[in-house]
Each structure stands twice: as structure tokens, then as C-alpha cells.
């Protein structure tokens, strides 16, 4: 049994960690956090040059053609560094949707641009409150034009193109939904930035008014494609969350070793030690669940839907748990803008919602486990 990443993949992880330590210091993240730039353009360019943006994109479409296990180890490092770039929207959502459902021409047009860093993509799914569900998609597509409002759209204000979920029927079934591909500089698109929990990653409201759009995938297949895209993104995001959880745990551990109170390292108090031990436990469970997700993703296994939901829940819990208790270990200093703890707290809580909340994924997991047991 070798339920682990290969030596080459681990080497890639080290390479990504080294690159990000250099190019994506907390100081660099703060430029975006403080609103001085919408995202880190230099870093984005560097990621393209390293081949990270196209690592799972086939060579014929301008990528490295490596695979999803390679993407998982890079994702972990992106999460660890809290990178302020539209990596997940572009690579996990837009590019994956294109890979699953795009025509030859669509792939040829957009995937090389993703790999080279020229095009930022995103998925426009949500329309206000609520979790992913066909009934929550109200934006309409008729006669080749889209009308409606998407909100929030991750990285919507900086994206060049979006995969848009639209209503093309009213039967009440999943096949009422179809996907469309839209260049966001098209006429009739209006984009407004929204304040959000994690300013290092933008969120936007996008209004579509008679916007011309081309279908992505067959009409009526939208929900089935979206489900696959969300599952794949859930595994990849889980790796970012695992990376973030590990970093938050490390920060807490380091502070507990450095800080002296009552004449001793605060890490010598059991109340603090045990809190950190519990963080380690949840981070470890999340990592193991995510590895299973990675295996299912990379082999396109029938277990992917269940594995993805488990990875999603476990990694979401772990990142939230580690990020909040990292602040607790730091005490008052953890609640200052100056310390980096809140950046992970913000990221953890934003990520917990971005692909649908825990409520949604818990439901998915149980449905999928029942399906498996019935089979």
C-alpha cells in the first residue's frame, strides 16, 4: 500500500513552499488585505511561470499535463501561504468546468490563457442567500442571452471570464439548469465589488443584462456538470484548508513556545497544550480525509462524491478550529490587525462558505453514503 504522495510530488510541494515563502510573505498578503491591490499580480505571474496554474491542464491546452495529485500539493501550499490570488476560482472551478464540459474550441481558447496567467476565470453560481440547489438559480438564459444577478462571485471583479449557471427550463428538475461561458468584458455585464470576510480574496456582484453567452456543455446538463465541478473543487479546496490549518497550528505552537507568562512558557500549561493537541488532531483527520479525496479525484473513482464531501467537511472544520484557537493561544495580540492570526481566521471562515456551507455538504455526504450502501 502506498497511500501517500510520491517522492516527486513531495518534491513539488517543497518547491511550491519555497517559492511561496519567498514571493508570498505575510507582508505581501497584507498589500491586498489593506486594499492597496485587488490581488497580487506579481505572484500570479510567478505562479504561471512556475507552471503551477496549468499543472493539471493537459499539454495540448498549454498546461504541464501533470495531474490532480500535483495540483493537490500545490493547493496545500497556497493555503499555507494564504495566497491573495484567484487560484481556486480560476484553476479549481473555471478550468475544471472547461475540462469536464468545454468544446474543443472553448478549451483551446481559455485553457492556455489560464495556464499562462493571462486569463482569470470564475464560477458564477450563487444568487444571494442559500446553498447550491437548482431552485436557487433564477438567472435566465433565453435566445442566447443571460439576464439576472449573481452574488457573491469569487474574484468576480478581476475575472476575465465566468462559467455561469442559468435557468433554461421550469420543470422543477435538475435539467432546468444549463451552463454558459461569458467573457466578462462583454456588453451588458456590470460588476460591483463587495466587502467580505476575507479581503485577500475579492467577492463581487455581477449583473447580466441581455448578455450574449455561449453554452458550456449540453443544454440541461448544467446541474450534473456543476455537481462534478463542486466535488472536484471541494477536494482541491480541502488541501488549501489543510495547508491553512497546519500553518495556524504552527503559529500557535511557536507562540506557545516563545511567550512567557507566570514565569513559564505558556506552552507548558496543560490548558494550552491540550488546545494545541486538539488542533493537531483535527488537522490530522482533515489531512487523511483529504488524501482519500485526492486519490478519488486523481483516479476518477466512483467514490469521489462521498470522498469529496468528507474531505470538504473535515478540512473546513479543521481550518476553522485551528484558526480560531490560534487566536486564543495568542491572547490579546491575536486580536490585533498587526498579528497575522486574523488573516487565517478570515480565510478559514470565508472558505467554509464559498462552495456551499457545511449544512449543504453534510446533507450531500449522507445522501451519498446511503446511495453507496444501497448499491
Amino acid at each position, binding site marked *: 500500500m502506498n497511500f501517500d504522495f*510520491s517522492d516527486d510530488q513531495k518534491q513539488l510541494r517543497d518547491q511550491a513552499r519555497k517559492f511561496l515563502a519567498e514571493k508570498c510573505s505575510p507582508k505581501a498578503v497584507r498589500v491586498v488585505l489593506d486594499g492597496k491591490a485587488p490581488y497580487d499580480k506579481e505572484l500570479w505571474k510567478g505562479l504561471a511561470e512556475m507552471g503551477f496554474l496549468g499543472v493539471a491542464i493537459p499539454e495540448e491546452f498549454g498546461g504541464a499535463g501533470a495531474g490532480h495529485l500535483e495540483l493537490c500539493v500545490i493547493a496545500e501550499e497556497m493555503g499555507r501561504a494564504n495566497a491573495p490570488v484567484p487560484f481556486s476560482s480560476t484553476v479549481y472551478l473555471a478550468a475544471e468546468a472547461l475540462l469536464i464540459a468545454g468544446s474543443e474550441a472553448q478549451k483551446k481558447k481559455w485553457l492556455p490563457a489560464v495556464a499562462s496567467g493571462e486569463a482569470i476565470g470564475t464560477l458564477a453560481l450563487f444568487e444571494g442567500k442559500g446553498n447550491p440547489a437548482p431552485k436557487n438559480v433564477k438567472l435566465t438564459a433565453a435566445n442566447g442571452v443571460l439576464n439576472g444577478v449573481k452574488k457573491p462571485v469569487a474574484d468576480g471583479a478581476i475575472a476575465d471570464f465566468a462559467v455561469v449557471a442559468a435557468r433554461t427550463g421550469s420543470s422543477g428538475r435538475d435539467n432546468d439548469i444549463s451552463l454558459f461561458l461569458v467573457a466578462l468584458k462583454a456588453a451588458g455585464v456590470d460588476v460591483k465589488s463587495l466587502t467580505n470576510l476575507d479581503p485577500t480574496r475579492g467577492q463581487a456582484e455581477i449583473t447580466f443584462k441581455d448578455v450574449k453567452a455561449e453554452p458550456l456543455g449540453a443544454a440541461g446538463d448544467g446541474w450534473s456538470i456543476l455537481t462534478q465541478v463542486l466535488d472536484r473543487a471541494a477536494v482541491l479546496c480541502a488541501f488549501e484548508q489543510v495547508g491553512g490549518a497546519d500553518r495556524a497550528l504552527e503559529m500557535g505552537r511557536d507562540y506557545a513556545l516563545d511567550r512567557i507568562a507566570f514565569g513559564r512558557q505558556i506552552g507548558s500549561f496543560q490548558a494550552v497544550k491540550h488546545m494545541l493537541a486538539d488542533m493537531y488532531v483535527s488537522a490530522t483527520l482533515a489531512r487523511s*480525509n483529504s488524501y482519500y479525496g485526492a486519490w478519488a479525484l486523481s483516479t476518477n473513482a466512483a467514490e469521489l462524491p462521498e470522498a469529496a464531501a468528507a474531505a470538504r467537511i473535515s478540512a473546513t472544520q479543521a481550518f476553522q478550529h485551528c484558526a480560531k484557537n490560534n487566536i486564543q493561544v495568542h491572547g490579546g495580540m491575536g486580536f490585533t490587525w498587526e498579528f497575522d492570526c486574523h488573516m487565517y481566521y478570515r480565510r478559514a471562515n470565508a472558505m467554509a462558505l464559498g462552495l456551499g456551507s457545511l449544512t449543504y455538504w453534510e446533507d450531500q455526504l449522507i445522501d451519498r453514503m446511503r446511495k453507496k450502501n444501497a448499491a
Partner: protein
Amino acid sequence: MNFDDTPQEAEFRATARAWISANAPKQYEEELRKSSLGRTVLKNADILEVAKAWQKKKADAGWACLHWPKEYGGRGASPIERVIWQQEEGPFGQLSRMFIIGHGMCGPTMMAFAREEHKRTYLPPLASGEKVWCQLFSEPAGGSDVAGLRTRAEKDGDDWIINGQKIWTSGAHYSDYGILLTRTDPTVPKHKGLTMFFLDMKSPGVEVRPIKQASGASDFNEVYFTNVRIPDHQRLGEVGDGWNVSLTTLMNERSAIGAAVSTGFPELFEYCSSLMLDDGPAIEDRAVRSKLANWAVKASGLKYTSMRAISALSRGERPGPENSIGKLVAGSMIQDVATYALDLQGASGIVSGEDGELAGRFQAMLLRAPGTRVEGGTDEIMRNIIAERVLGLPGDIRVDKDVPFNKIPTKGRG
């Protein structure tokens, strides 16, 4: 990344599977499969006899204590082969539970510290289950703080005279031998005055009294020693070095990799899948689903953490203290799972045993669960191990570290 065996592992697995299929006591398979924490497993047979017979059969064919050297009754197998065997043995592995202490702790301690002739005499019948061993460390005054033990060993010619009391000794009532940690010098700090021995549990002056547990069952004992004689050649390690010897024992206890830990989750999921609540199937209830999902990811997290450890073994690495999380997570989880299962039953959840729902399966689990969070290292000790040995945090401040043992206070109040 894959779950595949290497060619050698696959060959070993096939051999093990074929032998188990031809030799295992299949008439008990169903009962063993359905057993879960806190439940007696065999209705119409003495489990001790069935377990001993299965162990002997395995030993005769070279399948007992696989990782031990052949000359001591093992197979000289690799750690990964041991894991593969456990996977293949499946529910029949339940029958090994009474040998866990002997095989997992006493055997390795004997191997590391006993004289060669003792190893050749005592280890093969331990491996074959003909002789059962127990571990006599904990005392009323020393549980988590095991080095606080007070049982005295005093030199008398070529013998040592033992007086004192042990507690929480699993299986002492059916054990033939035991390893015993004693205090040989109370005038030095506590970790320095300890010495380890092994002894015949039938020695004059040894008295075993079962403890009636909070669950009503009796898995553990108190063991009293009154002027018990142990010859010096049964000493394990140097006089005063008992603490280091005991660390070997405890390390082995906690390094059992790949052994499945009970979480109660499969039982709860199965139960909820068919349970009807007042307003519909439990599995369609929003609150039930949320609870199940949260436990599901803990159970799968433990499963795949164990797979990662097995992969490390397969590469020839030695997994370390990070595996403490299995017991820590599973212990409190099974307690929560059982509590919730009874909550779903409403008032009828009060009824236990054969009169209860599912023959009292979850009631038995609930009553046994507190013990799982204490035995073999409490939750708090497990967290200390993770904090200190995995995360590198400082050890607890020990106010009694440099104090002679006989000057350490023994009472908190008055």
C-alpha cells in the same frame, strides 16, 4: 497514491487468506462480527476456550505473533505483514483480545530484558496462547502517574520479597504470568527507585480480586501481594532501572498500528438507516444527518490516518506518537455516539440488556465507554503525548521530580 499491495505483500496476503479460510472457527464468525464495545460476544461457548484454541492453531502453523522471531514462537514477519494478517483475520481477531497485553506488552519487554533461557522457555507458550500474561503497573496511588507506585520489593538473599497492591490489571484472573513494576528504593526520587520483574501468578501470596466496574462487568482486577517471593533471575533490567524498562512496555502498547479502533459509527449509521422517528425516517431528519456527517468524517479520518501509517510501515518507516490520536478520538466518540443512539430511542432508551432496543447494544456501549477514555492512557495523557512528543511543547512541571519518594506528600487535604 494507491491502496495496492506490493507483489510480496499480495503473495503474503493470499497465503494468509487461504490459511484463515481453511482453519478459522467459522461457526463464531457472525457473532464476532456483530460484537461491539461492551458486549459479550459468544452465546453458546466459553470465549476463553475458543480464543485459546484459535491461538494454538495459529501458533502450530506459524501464524502467531507474526513479528516475533521464530525461536520465540513468532514468524519473523515484517510490520506490514503483521498488519496484513490483522486485516485478513478480520472478526476472528476479536479472539486475540485476551492476549493483547501479553503479546503487545509483556512479550516485547521480556524480549528486551529477560535472560536468553527465560526467553526460550516463556515466550513460545505466550505466543501460542497456552500461557496468558498480564501487566502489573497501575496502583491505587499511581494511575497516570505510574511512577508514583508503592508496591515494595525488598532483597532477601537471592530472592525479592514483594508486598503491596496493584489495580486495573486486565485479565489477572486468568493469567499465568505477569510483569511487575515495584519500588526497590523509596529514598531516591520516584523514577529512580523502581525495578521490574516477571512472576508466576500462582506464587504463594498472590491474591486476585475482580473489580466490579461501573458497567457492572469485571474485566479488571485488584492484585494483592503478601510476602511473595521472586527469584532475582526473574528481574528485568537493572535494579533501579524499572522506569526505563516500563517505557519499553508502554511504547509497545501505544505503537499498535493498524488495529481497528471502535468508534460506534458503523453501528449508529446502520441503526439510523432503518430507524423510524415520530415524523419519518431518522436518516431523513436534518438534525440526525448533521450528527451522522460529523461522526462519519471522524471515522473516515481515523481510517485513512491508519492507512497512512500502514503506508509508512510498508516503506519501512516506524510510525511514532502521532498514532495516539486513534484512541483519543475514538474513546470520546463512542461515548457520544452511544448517548445519541439512546437519545433517538426516547424513554425506551433507558431499557438495557435483552429487553432493550437491539438487545441493548448501545446501552452496553454507553456503560462501557467511560473506561475507554481512561484505560491505556487517559485522554489527558494522550493529549500530553501529542503536545510534547509531536508538537514539541514543554513537559509538565513536576514538583516531585527531585524529591526523595518517601518525602512526597500523599494526601491533598488534611
